[in-house]
């Protein structure tokens, strides 16, 4: 870990994070900030999903559960127990990660399509739980009073703080993806992704590695969920556990190049920008899922390695710099 900062990729990530943090500060551009906040959120979700999808080779449709559950725990602690934002976020992350570890040991016995299906089951189960759990407001959800922003210096100031935390969470996701990829743990995950039986025979503790990565991939999305729903001051089951957001995170991973750090981040950025454009343009409103479906088809057919796969093959030298 100590030698890490010497690698150029570490500085590329740092540069990207700084650029994100500073861009809207110049000229106090609030609409740019809101757009970048969503980019940072998508990059966080896609990068963490990539740990499962791109490294370990497991298709997780349920990645959004981490986001939604993190949101619920954070909003609930803030609302019912008058906690402040920071500890609520940390507790949300730790709880969701812990739950994922327990779940992971169970459902990661399944492989391929069976695992993918079971992750959809997890979404349904958690959503049903949230809809029927009275302390979480059942299906009508939880509303936060405007006063929650007061400790953060009022709504205008709070939104900036939330933005900076979100950028920090995005940065942490990128560093995490990179650190795992260049570690022994990451090598074991990649081996699992290529051929799980062969990996086990080579000595990779497959069950433990899969459960741990599933749990790790839950932590930062849970914090991002906490931030996102704290910012909205409102959470309800249908928003928190929206399967389409899970699907979009998968598309983003494949668009950018699963298993790469750079590709997934750029993919998330481009996809979210495109989605923002489609949502606001009057012709394409509510059209973004059609676009993501079409994109997915095109990528699978023509660019199975995604954006980074294409860049690597065109410019092989980039492989040494961009992970």
């Amino acid at each position, binding site marked *: 870990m100590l030698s890490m900062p010497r690698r150029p990729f570490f500085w590329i990530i740092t540069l990207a994070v700084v650029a994100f943090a500073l861009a809207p500060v110049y000229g106090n551009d609030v609409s740019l900030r809101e757009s970048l906040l969503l980019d940072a959120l998508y990059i966080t979700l896609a990068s963490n999903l990539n740990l499962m999808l791109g490294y370990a080779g497991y298709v997780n449709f349920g990645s959004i559960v981490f986001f939604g559950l993190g949101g619920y725990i954070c909003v609930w602690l803030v609302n019912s127990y008058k906690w402040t934002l920071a500890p609520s976020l940390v507790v949300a992350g730790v709880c969701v990660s812990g739950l994922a570890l327990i779940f992971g040991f169970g459902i990661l016995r399944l492989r391929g399509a069976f695992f993918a299906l079971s992750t959809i089951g997890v979404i349904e189960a958690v959503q049903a739980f949230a809809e029927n759990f009275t302390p979480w407001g059942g299906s009508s959800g939880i509303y936060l009073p405007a006063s929650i922003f007061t400790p953060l210096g009022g709504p205008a100031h709070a939104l900036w703080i939330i933005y900076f935390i979100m950028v920090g969470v995005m940065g942490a996701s990128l560093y995490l993806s990179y650190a795992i990829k*260049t*570690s*022994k743990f990451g*090598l*074991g995950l*990649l*081996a699992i992704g*290529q*051929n799980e*039986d*062969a*990996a*086990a*025979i*080579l*000595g*990779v*503790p*497959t069950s433990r590695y899969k459960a741990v990565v599933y749990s790790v991939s839950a932590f930062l999305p849970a914090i991002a969920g906490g931030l996102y729903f704290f910012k909205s001051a409102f959470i309800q089951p249908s928003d928190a556990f929206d399967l389409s957001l899970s699907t979009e995170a998968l598309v983003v991973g494949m668009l950018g190049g699963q298993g790469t750090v750079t590709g997934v981040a750029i993919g998330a950025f481009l996809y979210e920008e495109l989605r923002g454009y489609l949502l606001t343009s009057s012709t394409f409103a509510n059209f973004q899922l059609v676009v993501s479906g079409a994109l997915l088809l095109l990528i699978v057919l023509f660019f199975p390695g995604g954006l980074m796969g294409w860049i690597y093959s065109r410019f092989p030298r980039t492989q040494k710099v961009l992970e």
Partner: protein
Amino acid sequence: MTALLKVDRASKRFGGLQAVKDLTFEVRDAEILGLIGPNGAGKSTLFNLVNGVFAPDTGKITFAGADITGAKPYLVARSGLARTHQIVQPLTNMTVLDNCTVGACFGRENLPLHRAREAAREAIAVVGLDDRANMLALHLTIAGKKRLELARALAARPRLLMLDEVLAGLNPTEVDYMIGVIRQIRERGVTILMIEHLMRAIMSLSDRIVVLNFGQKLAEGTPAEVAQHPQVIEAYLGNPKLAAELQGSGEHV
């Protein structure tokens, strides 16, 4: 010589098929033990029992003094037992070097990443894949993939190496090369248990041979003894050419 691996009355049944029945044998320290037998004799199943892919229904397997009966494959690998597969199992989208690094990282010495790379490079040099170290495994020829299997198992620096038909599908030049590599590995003090159909190779490489038929041990002894064994000749009579070959090569040892 002490026994490194002991298989004691192991049995395994798949539905109606008794794949391995009441099998007892041992692999001694620093020897090459050949395992032969007709197709379906239970040789690969035996490998799978030893390295934990299946647990035996009954019986006991001891490796380096420790009971490994039914232990998970990754634990068996860590205890110093590596194997190759009859049907090659490369990690296709990883380089040759990364494939071997996995072997070294999670093998007997449980090496950290940078030291595992060194071990991997050494193993790659032993099998002569140095020039293809950065090639993706999927781009290797079948002979290359066989060598990769061997290098990857070797990178784990095992005490016992189990080779499942590493010579099958190779041309005569490649076979000679691989025989040289196997000898070299043995000289490094690695004990080898190998399944092979190629009689010329198994007869010249093995110190001892165990013959399996219908999951049971038919004979055991030096290559010459085994080749003279009436029951072994009988077992191969379904294929008289092979029996003749067996006897022919036995006399030359």
